[in-house]
């Protein structure tokens, strides 16, 4: 560096001098520009000062923000699910209201509300500068709107704001998914300084919140001339708002509708996923959120009631509900057993209804046993003894590796709020969590998806997809495209691969065959999904909630609701070239096939239009239950 500079200096010392001489010219330019500015100041302030002073005294131009039309939410076929309609809101600019008490009394009469309600609204906004309008009443109906418009000249300071707001085409459809909009609160205002105005709406939950930035657009400005009383005289200029981007979801409206309808009023979840892309076609949680209770702020009473509800409407059970996976976990055990060489397609175990370990009997759900079973029959008939045997030979830590490779034990990464990751136990995990060593008896429970095992319905659906698509773990996604206001796709769907199932393709084929057998063999547990036109594969699951001796011998209907077993059903179709995976969980639904199966059946029917499903006769279903197998 020194060389560079000194060379430049020495070769051309004269150059330095000429440069410096040129600075004189720069100073002259500087002076000239300073004179321009001073002259302009003189012109504005001295020459025209009086004129401008008067203008400033009579300045009556107001700026109003125009909310941008919020982006729409449509399903995968572009059918609108949520759009906008205008809301007519009444606001008050205190600055323009010389006699607010009198004004509010008259307004209360027109609106047919208690004047104290209006006063309360004003008190909330008292700390704000007086020109900031205060929202008095939201979403006027037509009659009241006309009444106010007619009296507007007797109501100085009162304005009607037209606010585009949400219109829901299907009440409560996808309520957990879409979330809702609400008025911005103090904290949100402070966190987004300068970007929101008071009275603005913003997404509070679900996609409305997650994609707030895209959906919102940019507000516009409207300049109005007002007279000395604050009445609008005319519009001076408008800068139109920039509409928000539209969301096109991967969700299929009909499928979502069927999922929610089929779940009905029970507590549960259903997920439909494209196995080769990770697109979520339906994701339902029931009971739905009653969104109308949230708009404008939920009351303490409603909130407490929702929290106390044993059907837990506040939880999105598809992503936030964690349940023992029960027999749906047997695919994990099968994959680990095959890949670790513990079993092959022909390995058999003998099931006499129970397996003894350390002086304890671990039962199979079938009291008198399955006899000699191979893998295919064990999956088809959900033989517990077979999987105890495999699980014990593989060991808990190896099982955990396979489970994790199928996506269990970690959030799937779907872009939804507060997703839970479930639990895949291992000896390390237990050491960390409870500071206790692993007991081998616990491996027995793990092998049939009980004990510490926990999974969300979304995870089981992803697992099913991964098992049948050749072992590729796609991240579940719900956004098909984000489209800007011109309809251009700003961000399109691209599958994301998050991992690869451990094990060979051959092992996956065997598991697939077992699941097909569960549907299509006479004693299979999942016969409810049988079809004469499409080959379906499935696995039922029944997850014990708690071990309670006293209820053991009661009839199922007499067991208190919260102690009944959870019902799982996960399936895929068509078996030859799987397109979709469907997972259904019904809380306390007792049995996989009868509790959750019918929901999956209806979803299959909706997706494969024209599919013929075999009729199930009452009482003929081979349905697994749970014996008291949990090592607690």
């Amino acid at each position: 560096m020194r060389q560079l500079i000194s060379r430049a200096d020495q070769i051309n010392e004269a150059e330095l001098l000429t440069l410096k001489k040129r600075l004189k010219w720069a100073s002259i330019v500087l002076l000239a520009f300073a004179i321009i500015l001073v002259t302009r100041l003189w012109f504005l302030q001295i020459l025209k000062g009086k004129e401008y002073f008067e203008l400033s005294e009579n300045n009556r131009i107001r700026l109003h923000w125009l909310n941008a039309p919020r982006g729409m939410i449509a399903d995968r076929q572009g059918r609108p699910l949520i759009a906008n309609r205008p809301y007519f809101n009444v606001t008050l600019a205190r600055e323009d209201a010389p006699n607010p008490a009198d004004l509010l009394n008259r307004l209360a009469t027109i609106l047919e509300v208690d004047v104290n309600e209006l006063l309360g609204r004003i008190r909330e906004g008292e700390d704000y500068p007086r020109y900031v309008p205060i929202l008095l009443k939201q979403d006027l109906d037509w009659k009241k709107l006309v009444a106010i418009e007619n009296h507007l000249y007797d109501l100085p300071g009162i304005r009607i704001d037209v606010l585009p707001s949400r219109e829901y085409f299907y009440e409560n459809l996808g309520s957990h998914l879409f979330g809702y909009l609400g008025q911005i609160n103090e904290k949100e205002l402070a966190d987004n300084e300068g970007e929101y105005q008071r009275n603005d709406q913003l997404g509070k939950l679900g996609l409305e919140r997650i994609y707030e930035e895209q959906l919102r657009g940019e507000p516009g400005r409207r300049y109005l001339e007002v007279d000395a009383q604050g009445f609008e005289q005319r519009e001076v200029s408008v800068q139109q708002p920039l509409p928000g981007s539209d969301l096109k979801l991967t969700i299929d409206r009909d499928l979502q509708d069927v999922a929610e309808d089929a779940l009905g009023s029970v507590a549960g979840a259903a997920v439909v996923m494209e196995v080769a892309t990770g697109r979520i076609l339906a994701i339902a949680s029931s009971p739905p959120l009653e969104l109308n209770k949230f708009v404008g702020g939920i009351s303490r009473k409603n909130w407490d009631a929702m929290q106390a509800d044993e059907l837990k409407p506040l939880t999105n059970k598809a992503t936030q509900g964690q349940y023992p996976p029960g027999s749906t976990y047997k695919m994990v055990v099968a994959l680990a057993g095959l890949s670790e060489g513990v079993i092959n397609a022909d390995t058999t175990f003998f099931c006499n209804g129970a397996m003894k370990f350390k002086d304890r009997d671990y039962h199979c759900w079938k009291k008198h046993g399955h006899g000699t079973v191979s893998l295919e029959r064990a999956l088809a008939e959900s033989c517990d003894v077979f999987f105890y045997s495999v699980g014990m030979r593989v060991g808990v830590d190896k099982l955990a590796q396979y489970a994790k490779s199928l996506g269990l034990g970690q959030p799937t990464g779907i872009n939804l709020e507060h997703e839970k990751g479930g639990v895949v136990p291992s000896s390390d995990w237990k050491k960390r969590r409870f500071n206790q060593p692993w007991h081998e008896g616990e491996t027995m429970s793990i092998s049939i998806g009980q004990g510490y095992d926990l999974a969300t319905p979304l995870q089981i659906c992803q697992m099913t997809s991964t098992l049948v698509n050749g072992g590729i773990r796609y991240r579940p996604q719900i956004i098909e495209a984000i489209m800007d206001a011109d309809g251009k796709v700003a961000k399109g769907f691209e599958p994301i691969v998050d991992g690869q199932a451990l094990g060979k393709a051959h092992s996956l084929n065997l598991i697939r065959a077992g699941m097909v057998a569960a549907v299509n063999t006479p004693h299979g547990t999942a016969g409810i999904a049988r079809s004469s036109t499409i080959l379906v594969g499935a696995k039922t699951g029944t997850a014990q909630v708690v071990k309670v001796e006293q209820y053991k011998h009661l009839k199922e209907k007499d067991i208190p609701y919260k102690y009944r077993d959870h019902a799982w059903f996960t399936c895929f179709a068509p078996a030859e070239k799987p397109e979709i995976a469907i997972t259904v969980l019904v809380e306390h639904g007792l049995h996989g096939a009868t509790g959750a199966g019918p929901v999956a059946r209806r979803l299959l029917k909706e997706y494969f239009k024209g599919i013929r499903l075999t009729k199930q006769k009452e009482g003929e279903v081979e349905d697994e239950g749970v014996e008291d197998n949990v090592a607690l």
Partner: protein
Amino acid sequence: MLRFDRRLFLHFDWALLVTLLAVVGISLMNLYSASHVGYLGTPPYVKQIYYYLAGGMLMLAIISFDYRRLLKLNYLIYGGVVVLLIAAMLFGKTTMGAQRWINLGFIKLQPSELAKLSMVITLASYYCRKDTGKGFRLLELIPPAALLLVPFALIVEQPDLGTALMLVFVFVSMTLFVKLRIGTVIILLMLIVPLVPLAWKHGLKPYQRQRVTTLFAPENDPLGAGYHIMQSKIAVGSGQTFGKGYLAGTQVHLDFLPERHTDFAFSVLAEEWGFAGAVFFLCWYFFLVFLGLNVAGAARDKFGVLLAFGVTSLLFWQAFVNMAMVLGLLPVVGMPLPLFSYGGSSLLTNLAGIGILLSVRMRRFSRGGE
């Protein structure tokens, strides 16, 4: 490392520092008036104090750093800024339709601000390495023009027309300063003049065009389009000779003047202190710029001269464009008044610039950097 050298202290530019402090003081006083009511959380004038403190420390760091090292580091700086600009494009936060910020948590960084300073350093380094005695020919202008074009295109894309134009102003000033051949100037004019209508039609976004036409809209229609300009002119003009008094500007406090603590801070000053106050402030401000040129004149080497000149021209053009906009002489572009308007990124950049000036001045008798 900074070896303590008595001469460094001796040649410290105290006049520049005092002038800077005067501008800072006026700025804070004015910002208080513009932003002490109606804000949730920390009001801007308090935040600005933090930014000044941070900027002061940055300045100290730069002073202790021999400016001649920038000559070696310049492409690293240039590359870093280009990477940041691309990052802002990909992950940046969108405000008012433009992607300008990267949120670092403690500050919302605007890489386009850094780009201004990096342009100065890059061009100073480039011209320093070239023999500039005979003046540039047209073809010789291609490499520096390419250096301009990359950040320029990225900033236009955001879009931030004000900052992009600033890069061009700095480029033109510095290139003219190192001398062009007269033939080159003529050819360039012949090439550029026909391009202007084309750029008008295709280069500008509708709102940008609107701002320019607004400027030339008849003055006698006070309710015509152009709220910003109109309200700003009313604010400045109504200040008259001695102003409406501190904290008493009606334009400001009745919320007629938008963006009053950022781009339009100068009109608050002019409203409350009148012609006398505005000219008083202008004197300090232009004296600061003049001292910048003085540093260039006192520099020991060519790089120092070019660097000081570049920093000064950057400061000057930002200030002029802002004031001319506030006074209704130029269309509204996003351009803060350096060292005066509220805003962390701009302040840090310009204080860094002053730091470079002080560094050049201090080292006028020391040779070599190491």
